[in-house]
């Protein structure tokens, strides 16, 4: 099966095909899943779209030219899937009306690493994180994706631009607006 696939691929993809695709899944599934989970705030959908992301990657391996890292390419597929998913969800009026839409509570607030902080410090930090989560929730999906890739995945601006198919200037604009929203939320605490 892998041999048949390899014959149709370019050099960059050939290297990947030579590797075990399962190995690629194991190496990158956590990051792809985390990105989708943060973006969609729906664990079930994040799980489904992670699977879909790797399936698409496998089917389109021939289009990977190696211009970006494999991880950036996978995040790009994930971002496109999330965007399509959001469009479909917007269209499903009845789903929202009947309350079948995913629970949009951000579970991240309850998952602060406590370290050696005092209970008071943890409480304050939790408030800050809640404010950032709320601000992120009010961003457009594109802005949220940029914001999350920068401050959770700690990616460079050019990597974010490649992953989201944007110009670096647009990435900066999105980040700037996102930070303004976050600061205004933090001010209101």
């Amino acid at each position, binding site marked *: *099966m892998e041999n048949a696939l390899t014959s149709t691929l370019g050099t960059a993809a050939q290297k990947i095909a030579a590797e075990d*695709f*399962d190995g690629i*899944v*194991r190496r990158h*599934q*956590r990051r792809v*899943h*985390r990105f989708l*989970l*943060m973006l969609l705030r729906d664990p079930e959908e994040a*799980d489904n779209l*992670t*699977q879909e992301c*790797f*399936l698409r990657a*496998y*089917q389109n391996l021939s289009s990977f030219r190696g211009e970006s890292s494999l991880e950036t390419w996978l995040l790009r597929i994930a971002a496109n899937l999330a965007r399509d998913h959001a469009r479909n969800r917007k269209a499903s009026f009845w789903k929202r009306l009947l309350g079948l839409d995913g629970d949009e509570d951000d*579970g*991240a*607030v*309850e*998952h*602060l*690493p406590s370290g050696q902080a005092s209970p008071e410090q943890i409480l304050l*930090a939790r408030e*800050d*994180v809640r*404010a*950032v*989560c709320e601000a*992120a929730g009010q961003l457009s999906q594109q802005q949220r994706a940029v914001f*999350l890739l920068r*401050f*959770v995945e*700690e990616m460079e*601006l050019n990597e974010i631009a490649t992953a989201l198919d944007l110009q670096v200037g647009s990435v*900066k604009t999105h*980040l*700037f607006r996102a*930070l*303004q929203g*976050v*600061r205004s939320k*933090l*001010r*209101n*605490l």
Partner: protein
Amino acid sequence: MNNEQNAHDPLVERVLVSFDLAAEHHVAHCEPCQAEREKLEEALRQFGAANREYSMRPESFWEQQAARIRANRHRSHSRARSVAVLAPALGALLFAGILLVHRAPQVKPEAQALPTVQADSDHELLLAVERAVESDTPQALAPVTLIVDESDGNFPLEKTSSKKEMQSHAN
């Protein structure tokens, strides 16, 4: 964080978004901006850490997910293979269908024309018989017409000669 607006607000964002020498220089020497930057950076750091923590899953979760991805991959591969096998057969079927459609109009008009011709000739024949019966009774049917006329009580004058002929035959 206080509710007061920092007069140098956008500079803090500019520093956090990308390297900006002028903004960096200002924030480094402005105490309120410095405090805001630290506060914002800390909140963002906590946000990132909380999200990374939240997305943690047990090893079994990742193994199950990898297995599902593998199964999806195999399913998609076998689907692609069956499409490759079925495509020529479907093509042949389509070709046969097109051939049938092209032939059908040539056969149909012939089949439909025959009954109309037949119907026309039948109709004409019937009309001819009717006309013949109405215009004149054939010689061989003359006795029968006489019997019919008698039973109706009609004895037309022109038929008397025929009656005499019949009597002479009887004698």
